[in-house]
């Protein structure tokens, strides 16, 4: 198979952009659910980077790593959503503004 066309750096650029947008979501949104989705977005940006480098070097270890990232993301989503569920039962809200028990 011939590797052609779009250079790896363009993929890196898109991955950097997606990672930054996810970071903005984590930093400025108030809902814990949206922050969780933003974390998933950041993980996906890193996955894109891994796959792009995997093609650049002609080795498949990067693609294997994407597998493990997905498994960790699935575990994180399951546990995190259970935590959000428990907090919602307690506070009737998922806004992080209301979770300041340790702050004051």
């Amino acid at each position, binding site marked *: 198979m011939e590797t052609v066309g779009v250079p790896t750096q363009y993929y890196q650029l898109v991955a950097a952009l997606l990672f930054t947008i996810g970071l903005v979501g984590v*930093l400025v949104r108030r809902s814990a659910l949206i922050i969780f989705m933003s974390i998933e977005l950041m993980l996906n940006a890193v996955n894109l980077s891994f796959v792009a480098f995997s093609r650049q070097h002609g080795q498949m270890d990067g693609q294997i790593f994407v597998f493990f990232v997905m498994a960790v993301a699935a575990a994180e989503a399951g546990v995190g959503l259970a935590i959000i569920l428990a907090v919602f039962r307690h506070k009737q809200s998922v806004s992080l503004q209301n979770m300041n028990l340790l702050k004051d």
Partner: protein
Amino acid sequence: MGEAILFTLFSVSAVVFSLGMVFRRNAVHCALHLVGVLLSLSGMFVLLHAQFIAAIQILVYAGAIMVLFLFVVMLLNVRGETPLLTPGAAKGFGFLFAFIVFVELLWVVVSQGGSEAEPAPVRVLPPGFGSPAEIGRILYTTWLFPFEVTSILLMIAVVGAVVLAKRKFA
């Protein structure tokens, strides 16, 4: 040529969907935008000769994980928050910090081409690159131990989720 066109299409849709995900008010809309991002990325994986990863991306991410998200969003029935973003200085600080990180990432991406240590990209990929057979072979030989550890991690996550979601503890 076709790859360039598809790359542009997928990258633009990924960025637009992700912006929509971060700045939409309704959590269900946010989740659906995230599905859009995941599908665009799966298209890019196909362009990068990672067909099996692309299929897994759709099955596991857009299928399983996002259904879990949507399930929780609809279960909680959260109203859209009235101030969308964090109030006060935290918001400006967040944007500033993200911008700084983006500039750093940009610098790394742009400067890596001139680095001496970086080997030249491979012109011809090995046969079977990205195919399920080849991925399975590497996964069950070189990466066998991490694979087993991952299975334990998933089991712990299942137990943890069940314990946390039980009504008595909450």
